[in-house]
């Protein structure tokens, strides 16, 4: 839904730009294409990797890793799974809700959701192209560590531990 809204906004802006200055708009689109073309191999490679990893880390495996057994191992496992996988939110949140109903702890789910959103192991090749190795590694490491803090706070506030 939000994707379509962004499409509509983009087309409206493109229309305004075109009415104001055809040449400039053409130049903008050429720039867009070049910027896209530059990064396309990384994008495609990442998508292949996502395919491989998501078929290994399916909902079944995930729920086994961070299911009822829980504990700190469960929290670390859920952060690792979240860091590796690249699941769209509309799949991740219902999955997380389902895991909660099946006995996963709030800390595990907090770690999972946070790492899922902030850490992108699979997208490292893309991030690396834009930001270089050092920043990419540092950013992902801090985000990973931060997920444990998020897990702890969510466990305290929501889980009441």
């Amino acid at each position: 839904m939000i994707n379509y809204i962004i499409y509509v906004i983009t087309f409206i802006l493109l229309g305004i730009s075109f009415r104001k200055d055809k040449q400039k708009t053409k130049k903008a689109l050429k720039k867009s294409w070049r910027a896209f073309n530059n990064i396309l191999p990384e994008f495609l490679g990442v998508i292949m990797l996502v395919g491989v990893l998501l078929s290994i880390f399916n909902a079944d495996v995930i729920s086994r890793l961070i299911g009822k057994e829980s504990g700190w191992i469960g929290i670390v496992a859920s952060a690792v799974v979240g860091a590796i996988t690249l699941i769209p939110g509309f799949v991740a949140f219902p999955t997380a809700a389902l895991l909660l109903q099946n006995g996963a702890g709030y800390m595990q789910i907090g770690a999972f959701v946070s790492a899922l959103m902030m850490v992108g192991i699979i997208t490292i090749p893309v991030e690396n192209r834009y930001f270089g190795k050092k920043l990419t590694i540092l950013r992902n490491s801090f985000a990973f560590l931060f997920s444990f803090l998020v897990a702890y706070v969510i466990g305290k506030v929501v889980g009441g531990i």
Partner: protein
Amino acid sequence: MKIIKRYSFPLVGIFIITIITLFNRELGMKTFNTAIYGVKEMVLVIPPVFILLGLLDIWVPRETMVKYMGESSGLKGVILAIILGSAAAGPLYGAFPIAAIFMKKGVKFSNVLIFIGAWSTTKVPMFLFEMSALGVRFAVTRLLIDIPGIIIIAHILNLLLTKDEIEEIYKNAESILD
């Protein structure tokens, strides 16, 4: 030869999927289908990101971006970075090209990092979805800890990189756009 070298990463991916399919047909097909789904998602998310990037590059003067999000933009720049990141849709990889154009336009490095942090965690559409799936308490708690979190992480990262390294990242961002 040049094109094969350029596309070596996706080619390795195809190779891995082929190997998986040879050993386990079912798993291979599943992998293939997930990859197709990934391509579809990319097709849905990426075009507007790059079109907006082109339009921003052509129409928004550098001075404007520097004024609102540059070195001396202060709190205004931080808030703008959070709002822009939160208004986004799509996975984190969509944020990187936009971050690159921000750098080209002279946005302060810590604000670029805050923007990426906001894109990854405080996105409004995702927040609404999270509230309905995991409850208001869960979503609001996460939001409240994430906002200071991404600002602090941005500043730590900023401190850990030398001036030269940051300059190098800015130069690289410009070269990947043109």
